[in-house]
């Protein structure tokens, strides 16, 4: 029995369906990310779990407790749900000290003074904030503010932690550091995480499972490696990292050609189930292509940029653009040269899928 359970959850804003009959089960202690472009419904979903939005259909349960249900016309307000939540813009209260920010949820619950002190102390210790306990959060850096927000969310020792793009207001290097801190806190306290982000590498690095969403509809729910390695469709593939899409026409003999002109070798034939699907997309990642004399087809280098550790090539093949990134130590062609390219990991999708 999974811990957080969303059944047929649907939310509409006017005529727009923000979330369309979403089913979701998240285990206890799991780190679950919702990934997608802005407006895909991931934040709305999180806010429905938090209780800031009611739902138009379906129900949400956590640990067997009913939180929202349309059919039973039941809705538990956010202040009664006992979640921890961290927001993008920190949302720490500038008029309260760091300590009072963290103690706030405990004071609301009218715990004993000793208990409040102990729990606040614990949350501040876990987030390395003991030294700044009496400071105003205004004087802290972005990373410091976000630690206060985390400590405040931890204080009540919640079973579920809701994180709404918590790192996107931070510098890139700080972002990476905080990512690990969140993970360490989860290990220590054992809460489940529902994490909303539009940054794929953040989701990859942090999550046990990822949900990729587009226009309110689930595209794939899987482990990070499977999302990367076995994308369910073209959208999922395009959303994770850099990508090349080549338009390809299937030929009657089971092979295919690069837009009518160049037949591709048999080694690069589309899978059987897609042969009758009309024009296809041949998808590859720039890092998964080699220069090779025994390549699948030839292409001409139009741009070459030295980016430090890697060199970035742009090529054209039959009027279509192809991008390749190689370690700077791998020898490669110069601008204007034509060379063979070998697709190490080709993916096939229907053109309009």
């Amino acid at each position: 029995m999974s811990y957080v359970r969303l059944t047929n959850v649907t939310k509409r804003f006017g005529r727009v369906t923000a979330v369309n009959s979403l089913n979701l089960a998240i285990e206890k202690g799991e780190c679950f990310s919702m990934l997608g472009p802005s407006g895909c419904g991931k934040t709305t979903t999180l806010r429905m779990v938090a209780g800031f939005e009611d739902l138009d259909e379906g129900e949400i349960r956590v640990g067997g407790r009913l939180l929202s249900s349309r059919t039973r016309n039941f809705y538990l307000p956010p202040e009664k749900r006992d979640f921890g939540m961290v927001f993008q813009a920190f949302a720490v209260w500038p008029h309260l000290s760091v300590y009072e920010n963290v103690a706030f949820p405990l004071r609301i619950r009218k715990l004993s003074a000793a208990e409040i002190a102990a729990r606040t102390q614990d949350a501040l210790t876990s987030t390395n904030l003991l030294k700044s306990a009496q400071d105003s959060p205004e004087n802290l850096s972005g990373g410091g503010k976000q630690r206060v927000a985390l400590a405040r969310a931890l204080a009540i020792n919640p079973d579920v932690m809701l994180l709404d793009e918590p790192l996107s207001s931070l510098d890139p290097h700080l972002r990476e550091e905080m990512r690990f801190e969140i993970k360490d806190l989860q290990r220590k306290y054992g809460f489940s995480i529902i994490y909303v982000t539009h940054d794929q590498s953040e989701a990859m690095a942090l999550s046990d499972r990822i949900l990729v969403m587009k226009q309110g509809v689930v595209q794939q729910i899987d482990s990070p490696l499977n999302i990367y390695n076995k994308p369910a469709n073209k959208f999922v593939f395009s959303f994770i990292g850099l990508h090349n899409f080549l338009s390809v026409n299937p030929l009657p003999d089971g092979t295919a050609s690069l837009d009518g002109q160049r037949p591709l070798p048999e080694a690069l034939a589309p899978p059987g189930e897609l042969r009758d699907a009309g024009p296809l997309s041949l998808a590859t990642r720039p890092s998964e292509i080699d220069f090779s004399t025994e390549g699948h087809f030839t292409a001409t280098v139009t741009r070459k940029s030295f980016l430090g550790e890697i060199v970035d090539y742009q090529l054209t093949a039959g009027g279509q653009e192809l991008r390749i990134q190689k370690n700077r130590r791998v020898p490669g062609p110069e601008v204007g040269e034509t060379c063979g390219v070998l697709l190490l990991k080709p993916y096939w999708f229907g053109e309009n899928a």
Partner: protein
Amino acid sequence: MSALAKKNDLDAAHFILGLSIAILVIVVAVPVLLIFLNAFWAEGKFNIVDVFAVLREPDTYQALLNSLIIASGTTLGSTVVGTFFAWLVTRTDLPFKKFMRGMFLVPFMLPSFIGALAWKMLLSPRAGYINRLFMDVFGLEAPVFNIYSYLGIVAVEVMYLFPFVFIQVCGALERMDPTLEEAARISGAGLFTITRRITIPLVLPSILSGALLIMLYSMAHFGTVAVLGIENGIYNIPTLIYERIHQSAGSFASIRTGTVLASVLVISAAFIIWLQGKVLGRGRYQIIAGKSFRPVELKLRALRWPMLGFCVLYIGVTIVLPTAVIFLVGGLKTYGLPFVSENLSLANYKFILFEYQVTKDAILNSVTLGLAAAFITMFAGVMISYVIVKMKVRGKGFLEFLGMLPFSVPGSVIALGVILAWSGKYGVNLYNTVWIILVAYIARYMAFSLKANSAALEQVHDSLMEAARACGAGMWQTLRDIVLPLVRPGMLAAFFLIFLPSLRELTVSIMLYAPTTRTIGVAIYTLNEDGETVFSAALAGIALLLIITGQTIINRVSAKYQG
């Protein structure tokens, strides 16, 4: 050749700086300095003993006390009323919130002394329509409410000043990052707790800042106290200055009292402004954020429609009723008659617009004075702001200090200062001419112009000007082609910010007018004093029409600029 070009730039910069300093010194600094000089400098030496002697005189002491009482009452009342309505229209599900929000801003454009006039007609102890209604119809012995009282004065000032707090708090509540409140909710706090422990503390700096603004305004406010207080012997600082200067024209003792009182005003104003800076500097939290959802909205449930009813009633009583009374009394044949159709006509309006020399002069004076003051102050303000905001020249610090002055000098102080400066003692005598009023208007409204123009100039990033230089434009060409077109909205705003209030100006003009240089405000006030209540009301009605028309034009224009 190249060195020459640099020198030209520098000369131009110094010329502008010098001119800016000269304007502020002549228009603002000299009058204020003369006030201090007259107050603290007697017979060639510094003299503080006499200053205290003046302050201890019963009349003076009472006026100081009254200013304090009235200002405190007004501030307190306005803060409560302003904060409550601001909360109501931003944080609850009150019906027609947007419309109500607009209505609460209407008192901003109504002159409070015209409001005071209307309330006098409604609630003066014997002749007030409401008091008479109760006494005649219900047979009450005594009047229901005597408007000639501290409470009356404070109530009327609150009606017209609370928008200062209202607008500040509305802005703060609307800009506030809703996740600050959501974070409290997810922490387990209910809406009432959030309002008390999160929302109110976060907007407290805005509330205080608005409250101090009202304090400043009310301390130095002339009109309401003049209309409602003098009758009953209630004077505050500005009205006492007026009384002394006006009644005992030019005697040494009265000038002395006037300058001492004016000094007190300037010092308190400077203190209030300093305090406001302190509150804003320390407490203006970074509570604004990017990504936002709708803020938590309190459901009024059963109170929804009653609350709307209350708001409508408030607006009806404080705006519609007084305005209607002004127009109705303006149409009466004789003051005191009941409002029935046979007593009402447009004759009074026709008379004051086309026949009565005093009011015709007043309207003409006010319009020309307003236009001239707005025009001159707008250009002077843009130049001074440019030096302060954009130029890197030595000696700018002094100008910045001078630029702060207009903000802390109340109207009656300016009037007294220009009397001291321009009455012939220093070679130029403008007294009893329209020019002295013009000079005083420029000094009084310089703050508005500096504020609007600096704000506009801050928006013009340096790189926009540097880009022009890199394109081959010299300094003057850059000013003409880039800077001026970009600050035009600010200049236009400054123009109207000066022109409209000057149409209803009373505090300054009342101290400076001569028989032929009455302004609209002076004419309304003196007609009322002379018992010509119906003419006074008719002229007030016309002033209201002018102001409302002007305001509508501004709103249209600024909407166009923003869209």
